[in-house]
């Protein structure tokens, strides 16, 4: 289990199709809402006014797309609006009441100085005429899409009481081309699938992207040398470090809560997979599991004191938890069903999402780790895999198949809203939702 001659922490910049932000990927995703809750809240997102010198960016279109995409809101069609207020004082509440709108968002863009943009917005409850939000965002032209997502976050929270996660990012693997001549891309995009950037490209498989807790780096597995290695790549610069290239398997990187350590899966010469922890500063390697079965897919508890992982030590794959205190024995967590794998923890640590097999179908389930909620199967697919929680814990993004293609899907953690994100080309795999601050 020693490191091979391939040196540790070798920094390679911009080699082998490694990109800093800037490489534009494919066009945007198409959102299909496959199951929605019965009542979507009617809201009017009035087109923002552009004051003298302000850019013509359509903030309202981005906010509408975000809120409609959540399936919890139904934004009013612009052509049905009878006037276009951009401050609260201009809103004629009786008109909006007659149009059956519960909330109105108004706003404007202005240019306080060259290169700078201020975005003002106000949210009103039509029935009570109460002002729920009133903010000004100071940004620049390049920051307007992010500012729009931040407005969506504020509106979502003001009305639903749940922090929005629109101003965050996702990472996923995009596979292009036909067997055996495929191209594997690691892509980072806005949470709505817009603004996709290719950060790594290879003719060999890329796997298991994992966001650092600060949202600035991705760890992932690359088979670029035909054998698996784990790299950590800084998104802003494209610089990357080789962090694990031991003989055999190097898989399933998972960041510790403070980002100082990486849990990984390694194998010995006999091919036995076990979970290890690599200290990123000292490079010290600590073995966590000791079992002849497959032990893999480690995931940290929020306190950093234990790991969840998949093991088939009892037969089929099941999820276990092990304390990092030396000598601790793993404790089995899942008992329902013959196949439970790839555990992912909710941001508050209260639930586990994972892949479960129901009959011959693979679906996404959650397990209540604290109360008596038990296990709940949230999805209804056949090929559902790779769940990842949104940083607000309200949704899970996962991968599935649609008409033979790999696509992304979202399900709310209450199971009521389900959507599919269809990429215009290729197979999309292994989505991972970045933390807040991963803009």
């Amino acid at each position, binding site marked *: 289990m020693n490191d091979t001659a391939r040196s540790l922490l070798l920094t390679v910049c911009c080699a082998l199709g490694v990109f800093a932000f800037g490489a534009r990927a494919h066009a945007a995703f198409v959102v299909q809402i496959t199951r929605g809750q019965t009542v979507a809240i009617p809201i009017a997102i009035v087109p923002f006014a552009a004051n003298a010198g302000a850019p013509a960016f359509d903030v309202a279109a981005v906010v509408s797309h975000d809120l409609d995409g959540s399936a919890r809101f139904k934004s009013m069609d612009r052509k049905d609006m009878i006037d276009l207020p951009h401050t609260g004082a201009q809103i004629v509440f009786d008109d909006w009441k007659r149009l059956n709108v519960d909330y109105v968002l108004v706003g404007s863009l202005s240019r306080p100085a060259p290169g700078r943009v201020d975005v003002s917005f106000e949210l009103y409850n039509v029935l009570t005429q109460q002002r729920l939000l009133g903010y000004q965002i100071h940004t620049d032209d390049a920051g307007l899409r992010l500012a729009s997502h931040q407005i969506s976050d504020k509106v979502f929270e003001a009305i639903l009481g749940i922090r929005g996660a629109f101003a965050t990012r996702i990472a996923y693997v995009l596979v292009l081309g036909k067997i055996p001549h495929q191209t594997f891309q690691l892509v980072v995009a806005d949470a709505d699938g817009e603004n996709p950037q290719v950060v790594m490209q290879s003719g060999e498989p890329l796997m298991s992207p994992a966001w650092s807790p600060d949202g600035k780096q991705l760890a992932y597995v690359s088979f670029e040398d*035909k054998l698996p290695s784990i790299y950590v790549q800084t998104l802003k610069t494209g610089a990357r470090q080789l962090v694990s290239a031991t003989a055999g398997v190097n*898989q*399933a990187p998972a960041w510790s809560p403070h980002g100082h350590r990486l849990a990984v899966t390694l194998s010995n010469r006999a091919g036995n*997979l076990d979970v290890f922890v690599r200290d990123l500063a000292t490079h010290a390697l600590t073995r966590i599991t000791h079992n002849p079965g497959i032990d893999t897919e480690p995931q940290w508890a929020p306190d950093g004191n234990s790991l969840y992982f998949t093991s088939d030590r009892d037969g089929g794959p099941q999820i276990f938890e092990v304390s990092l205190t030396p000598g601790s024995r793993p404790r089995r967590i899942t008992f329902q069903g013959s196949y439970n794998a790839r555990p992912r923890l909710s941001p508050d640590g209260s639930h586990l999402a994972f892949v479960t097999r129901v009959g011959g179908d693979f679906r996404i389930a959650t397990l209540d780790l604290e109360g008596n909620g038990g296990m709940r199967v949230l999805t209804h697919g056949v090929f559902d895999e790779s769940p990842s929680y949104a940083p607000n814990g309200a949704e899970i993004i996962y991968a599935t198949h649609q008409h033979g293609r790999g696509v992304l899907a979202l399900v709310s953690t209450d199971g009521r809203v389900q959507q599919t994100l269809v990429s215009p080309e290729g197979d999309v795999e292994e989505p991972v939702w970045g933390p807040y601050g991963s803009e």
Partner: protein
Amino acid sequence: MKRLTAITLMLTGALALAGCHGKTAVKGQPTSATEVPAGATTGGAGGAGTSMTPMNGANGGSLQAVAQNGNNVPREQRTIYFDFDKSEIQPKYEPIIAAHAQTLIANPGLRIRLEGNTDDRGSREYNIGLGERRAQAVRRALMLQGVADSQIETVSYGAERPAVEGDNPEAWTMNRRVDMVYLP
């Protein structure tokens, strides 16, 4: 390159060169039509009525080809297929393993990479474990026949390197496999 030349000389016939190059493209060498298993459509997904069943290829003539040509033999002569969630080698593949073992024993300078694969259902990282277990099963079978450990390399691609596309049992059957690839 010197080592490769030496290996080439040890193998019989001019055909050996292409085999030893593995996946590396060789000038003037046609791209391998042998990548597609017999019975599979070249489009991959497999239209209605197309059946894809792994062949064991266990007849004398084919095994002679294995011994002489390394990678340059039909896929079914260098691929071992597995049942769902299983890593046991079925008896029908023993002649193929024996043929590769003979080749490796007769040519101690030859090295082989055993590439473990799974179908693409379920958890990707767990599938890496399953693919590794399958590659190890073939490694042990070769070593039991007398092949030196130093001649064998294993890698698991899990579900990442399917042989054929398709969300159907035929495709899954073709993808649960270990490919034996001779290294340059």
